[in-house]
């Protein structure tokens, strides 16, 4: 279908197989806590966040998406 010659097809199949077996990346593999840290937030009634809320926000952000479970 991809119009590969037999050699290229073998390489393609090998790489495809490796990709299927690979561990999927998690959000934390791609993004760091430092760069995801809230700098400016939209909150209800414009309330300023405190350190505890900042930590809770980061925890929520790094929680895996439910559809990934």
């Amino acid at each position, binding site marked *: 279908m991809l119009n590969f010659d037999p050699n290229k097809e073998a390489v393609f199949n090998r790489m495809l197989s490796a990709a299927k077996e690979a561990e999927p990346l998690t*959000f934390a593999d791609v*993004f760091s806590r*430092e*760069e*995801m*840290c*809230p*700098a*400016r*937030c*939209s*909150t*209800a*009634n*414009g309330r*300023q*966040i*405190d*350190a505890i*809320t*900042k930590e*809770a*926000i980061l*925890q*929520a*952000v*790094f*929680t895996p*998406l*439910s559809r990934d479970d």
Partner: protein
Amino acid sequence: MSFQYTQLSRPQLEEIADVVLNRYSHRCSGCLVDIEGIVEDAEIEIIPRQGGLIKYVEGYAAHNPRYIIVPEVGMSYSPRYRPVVAEEFCHIVLEYDFLKCGLPLEAHADGLTAQQHADIEADARYLSLAILFPRSKFTIAFNQCLELRGKSSADRDKNIRACGETLENKFQVWSLLVGSRARDLALITPEECKRNFSNRLLM
């Protein structure tokens, strides 16, 4: 050196909004300003997340100014979601120089003084509405709507509320914020805004 934020005047914020709207004029169609398109053109990525994020924030600009994080559940209603994206985009525009160099500790969201927080939020909020409701288009649309409503009813308050709903559809921005912008542009009085929209609207 400690962090300082100098609040901008409304004419300055309107001027910044004009610059943004001119630069991304291809993202404006009729009354609709495609803020997500503008964000994309500015190479900023919107990242939807779950994990109960909505309990804490409607959205936020991250320390890395390439990212805006939003709770996934908040994305379903465009007139509420778009102003959040716009406000976070405006934070990045207004404080880009600080963000790109890394915010000093005292400039972190939880490290600002109450006054700094209020000034920064007020500027971002005003600028976001100036972008989503371009001054001249909004003024014309609001006045036309009010005039049209005035032909069938003499009840100005009722007409103002109806214009809020009409313009929410036209601009795809929450009617409460229509009221806020109309007040900011002196198309309605602060009292009319409180009476017809919400006294919870930040001044």
